[in-house]
């Protein structure tokens, strides 16, 4: 007897491969998904009695394909279904099928399935939603919950995204090396988006959005298993693992943000860190650095530091400099300024972020960092102005509350001196 929890996990993990292969057969996403659903129902009837098949994905592909073909025939001729024993007796058929479908086929099937979700006409949030639905198999309800929207709104969003995908030309031919690399990059970006959607959920102590991070980790590992030798996919997987490892320490009991240097490092997930560090090491051997690897290397330096004061800020500064070369953006420079402040002092960091002002005038963290630097230089009045600007731009209550702590502290410190702005909160 196979227990239901095992079957459930087997169906979930077989899903990308099975739906990917069924999509290749039927060249239609709805048919492929329906065939997979039907095969899952059959599995739930069949596996508890007969035991699980050796290769669940191959079983589901085979059964799903037969059911869907039968469906087409039945609609055409009103023919009776073959007897249950005929389609359920899969002992030999399964072995034969597993032979025919080799690993290379699966690899491109899964990549294609992920890739069609990255349609450039779809906004990022829709790409993520549709990938979670199609590839991960999360229910619309689960996805709606993670995005904090109503189920009907999410249903609409996914339906719209799917029709956009259906209307698009799905690339069914086996991709060449260049196409494959492009698809891989698009898919990696989407997986990182899924992760960020869950990770940047500030003030989410209940962990409502944490499943997005778990799912992103699962997809990254899946992608890495398909492309074992790709250093950037190692970097991506390492990055999401190392960042998610800190999740238990990122918020306090009230849901307020706890900064990296104030986090209780004993809460960090050591197993995820170990896996992340191993992958950073693996990627580095290839000597083909990319943005994910560099960001993962930065996260690795934080993970390796037993105490905040053990952090190798000089190395972090160098890595951000490398990231600026690979992927120049004002936000990267802003992050680098934090490392520069630690290595060279706040003056140098302030000079570094000054030219970013026009481009980051609407960015919460810019004013947060600016205020933090001014504070260290003892320029309290200017710091207060920067913090006020940050609060005005805060995206969440947790962000605003975090800055307010600085402001409160400032007010307390300056109150006896009768600072002109001391009364302000």
């Amino acid at each position, binding site marked *: 007897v196979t227990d239901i929890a095992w079957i459930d996990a087997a169906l979930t*993990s077989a899903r990308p491969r099975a739906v990917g292969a069924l999509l290749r057969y039927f060249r239609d996403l709805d048919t492929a998904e329906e065939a997979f659903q039907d095969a899952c129902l059959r599995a739930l009837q069949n596996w508890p009695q007969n035991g699980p098949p050796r290769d669940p994905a191959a079983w589901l592909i085979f059964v799903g394909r037969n059911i869907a073909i039968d469906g087409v025939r039945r609609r055409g001729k009103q023919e009776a279904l073959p007897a249950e024993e005929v389609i359920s007796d899969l002992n030999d058929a399964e072995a034969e099928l597993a032979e025919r479908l080799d690993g290379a086929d699966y690899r491109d099937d899964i990549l294609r399935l992920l890739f069609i979700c990255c349609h450039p006409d779809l906004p990022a949030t829709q790409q993520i939603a549709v990938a979670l639905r199609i590839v991960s198999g999360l229910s619309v309800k689960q996805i709606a919950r993670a995005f904090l929207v109503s189920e009907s709104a999410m249903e609409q969003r996914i339906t719209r995204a799917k029709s956009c995908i259906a209307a698009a030309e799905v690339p069914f031919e086996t991709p060449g090396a260049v196409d494959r690399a492009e698809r891989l990059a698009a898919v990696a970006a989407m997986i990182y988006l899924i992760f960020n959607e869950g990770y940047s959920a500030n003030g989410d102590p209940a962990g409502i959005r944490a499943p997005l991070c778990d799912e992103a980790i699962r997809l990254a*590992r899946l992608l890495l298993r398909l492309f074992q*030798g790709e250093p950037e996919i190692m970097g991506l997987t390492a990055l999401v693992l190392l960042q998610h490892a800190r999740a238990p320490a990122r918020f306090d009991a009230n849901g307020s943000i706890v900064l990296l240097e104030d986090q209780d490092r004993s809460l960090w997930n050591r197993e995820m860190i170990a896996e992340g560090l191993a992958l950073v090491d693996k990627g580095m*051997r290839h000597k083909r650095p990319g943005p994910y690897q560099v960001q993962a290397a930065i996260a690795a330096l934080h993970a390796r530091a037993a105490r905040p004061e053990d952090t190798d800020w000089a190395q972090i500064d160098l890595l951000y400099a490398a990231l600026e070369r690979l992927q120049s953006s004002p936000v990267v420079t802003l992050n680098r300024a934090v490392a520069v402040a630690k290595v060279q002092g706040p003056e140098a960091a302030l000079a570094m972020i000054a030219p970013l002002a026009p481009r980051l005038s609407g960015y919460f963290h810019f004013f947060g960092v600016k205020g933090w630097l001014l504070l260290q230089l003892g320029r309290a009045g200017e710091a207060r102005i920067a913090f006020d600007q940050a609060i005005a731009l805060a995206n969440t209550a947790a962000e605003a509350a975090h800055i307010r702590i600085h402001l409160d502290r400032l007010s307390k410190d300056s109150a006896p001196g009768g600072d002109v702005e001391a009364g302000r909160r």
Partner: protein
Amino acid sequence: MLYAILCYNSEDVVGSWSKQEDDAVMAKLAVVQQKLAKEGRLGPVARLLPTTAATTLRKGHESLVIDGPFAETKEQLLGFYVVDCETLDAAIETARELALANPGPGAYEIRPIRIFRPGPGIGAT
């Protein structure tokens, strides 16, 4: 007689367990482990990280480092080491030393360990 018991399962399936499910399985296994430990029959126990974290050193005339686990079916598992290494490069170097001592065909899969319990040791009660 000492026996090694090697654990095989679908990585995909185990990887899709929730933390609660994983914890529940580990708790049940811990009961068995504790019983063995009490009887002085438990040596080290290890849970490995996923195969995606593995690197393989293929022995031969010139050794070759490959990303991923050992995937051949022509050769069989004949032994294993647990070594403490600062970096992956150090672990690969260690495997190279072993390869030099025992040249010829074969391979070493280098897989980081997720959980390691040295155990009370055989004969300890």
